[in-house]
């Protein structure tokens, strides 16, 4: 839609509003970055200071002495494997759902929608006693497989929307040429699906990376992910020094996300609009 020619007052209201939003959207992150570079006295001084001496001490302490690198390593292992496994399983299912005409496919999608809306704590309530009994607590495999399952409903819906856009004639041609379904899938469909798979992968990554509720409960001690480890730095009765380390940790978690949004902005937008705008 082409923008309309507006009266000067309306135009400036729009402009100011947008600048105000720009400011509001950035302010919490900006302030978090600023205080993470300060000594505790300056970070939470009353009244707050806009300028104060800067130091990297909080980051040095948390990464070198508190072993935050270990949590970062755990996060890397868990998110990487979660993304790969989720995408493999979900793209198989989504492809089948986009090509199959039976009613069972529809009911499967409905079930996936209900599962997607489930609050994660509901699942955690059941995992807690069961995993404890089975003795599979605090292991990479456990967290990965749980995150993969939680990712499935969303990934299936999103990938299906992408697969629907690929013309059926393409795989039918492959079938005529003597491929079976599996060959048609990975020789013909997957190569043209890469943009969609990358987009869905981003959202799988975000879900695994951002998860606090499940990760903090299924993993403990040295097995924690970065986001879950943040929990031990928070809380009202922590010392200010420890809180400062937590802020440095929070910034460390945010930086990869900012890079990700910067690099994959187009894919994130297309992923969000894939399901909604096209119908």
């Amino acid at each position, binding site marked *: *839609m*082409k923008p*309309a020619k507006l009266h000067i007052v309306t135009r400036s209201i729009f402009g100011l509003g*947008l600048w105000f939003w720009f400011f509001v*959207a950035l302010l*919490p992150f900006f*302030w*978090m970055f600023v205080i993470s570079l300060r000594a505790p006295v300056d970070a939470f001084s*009353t*009244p*707050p200071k806009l300028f104060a001496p800067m130091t990297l001490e909080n980051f040095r302490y948390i990464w070198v002495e508190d072993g935050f690198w270990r949590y970062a390593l755990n996060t890397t292992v868990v998110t990487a494997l979660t993304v790969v496994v989720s995408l*493999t*399983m979900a793209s198989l*299912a989504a492809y*089948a759902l986009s*090509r*199959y005409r039976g009613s069972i496919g529809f009911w*499967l999608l409905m*079930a*996936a*929608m209900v*599962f*997607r*809306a*489930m*609050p994660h*704590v*509901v*699942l*955690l*309530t*059941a*995992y807690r006693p069961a995993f404890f009994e089975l003795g599979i607590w605090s292991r990479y495999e456990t967290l990965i*497989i*749980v995150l*993969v*399952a*939680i990712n*499935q409903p969303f990934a*299936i819906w999103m990938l299906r929307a992408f697969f629907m856009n690929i013309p059926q004639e393409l795989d039918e041609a492959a079938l005529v040429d003597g491929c079976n379904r599996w060959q048609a*899938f990975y020789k013909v469909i997957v190569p043209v699906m890469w943009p969609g798979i990358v987009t869905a992968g981003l959202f799988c990554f*975000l879900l695994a990376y*951002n998860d*606090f509720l499940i990760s903090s*409960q299924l993993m403990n001690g040295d097995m924690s992910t970065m*986001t879950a480890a943040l*929990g031990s730095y928070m809380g009202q009765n922590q010392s200010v020094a420890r809180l400062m380390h937590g802020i440095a940790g*929070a910034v460390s*978690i*945010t930086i990869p996300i*900012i890079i*990700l*949004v910067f690099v994959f*902005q187009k894919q994130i*937008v297309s992923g*969000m*609009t894939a399901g*909604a*705008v096209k*119908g």
Partner: protein
Amino acid sequence: MRRSTFFSFVAPSVMSMLILIALPLVAIIYLSLHQSYTQMEIKEVKTEVPLFGGKTREVIRNVPQPVLDDNGNGIQVWEYVGAQNLKNAIDTEGLSAAFKADQELETPRSFIKALFDEVRDVDFWSALEFTLIYTFLTTPIIIILGFGLALATNRLTERLRGPVVFVTLLPMIVTPVVSSLAVYWLFVDGGVIAASLEAMGIGKFYFLADQFTIRAVIVAYGVWYAAPFAFIILYAGLQTVPDDPIEAAIIDGASPWQRVRYIVIPHLSPLFAVIALIHIMDSYRVFEPILVFGSRVFANSVQYLTYYTLVFEDNIHKAAAYAILTVLGVIVLLIPIMIKTFKDQKAGK
């Protein structure tokens, strides 16, 4: 595609969902119908109490101790209690008392008051109250704000749009625990916001110490967190608005506002519905701000209540009862979407 091929393609995904999502849903029903405790027995314990000069006295006390099995572990007893856990969770007795109060006084006012006291006193009802307040306050605000932002961004030049979208994505994409913390640090006592408001002469605020302000801050966080979602969808939608009707409207002398009101909004109405539905589902499980702000007493959510019961009270049966109530809420919210999808499916065939 043949049925058997279909099944082999969807099998891994469906299996994972069955075992790790569907089975837990059945398990919480089982958990909520039971109560468990460690079996105890009263044992006589003899201890030698030193008196003086090396003399001791034997003291016999009756102490409850867990019954141990052959391996030396305590024996857990599981007992079927029926719907008792659920009844405790929603406090049926308190509810019926509220209804009785109405019969005695027979004024709607006293009834509402009794109901209100009930909501304030019972964990589940107060958590549900704030969850619903949060959900139904943020939904219209994010739609209006997102639409306004989309219209404003649409007026920008190509070069400026990228940065606006980039900045707008951040509140939504950054780890919710981290973004809640970032907002929390702005609102702490004597923090940036409180100090600025005081410097401007508006007044002294302790945001986290009062029910109204802490709720307002959490709702504001919810708007800040979810408005980008509405913005992205509506901004993409604006690009699909056809130019012809708008040009026709300009020729007919429609004002910019009338064009938005009678052409753009009707064109985008399916998107408004999608945003509302997805946002309602997501905000029903609001968790991170409640955790980070430590606002359990003033503003709780059903998901945080269950989490708290499970993790801090370590009571899986009570938590399972809350979880079931949470699931019932999800289903109630989903029914309109499911009916709509079902109708679309039928129409498509």
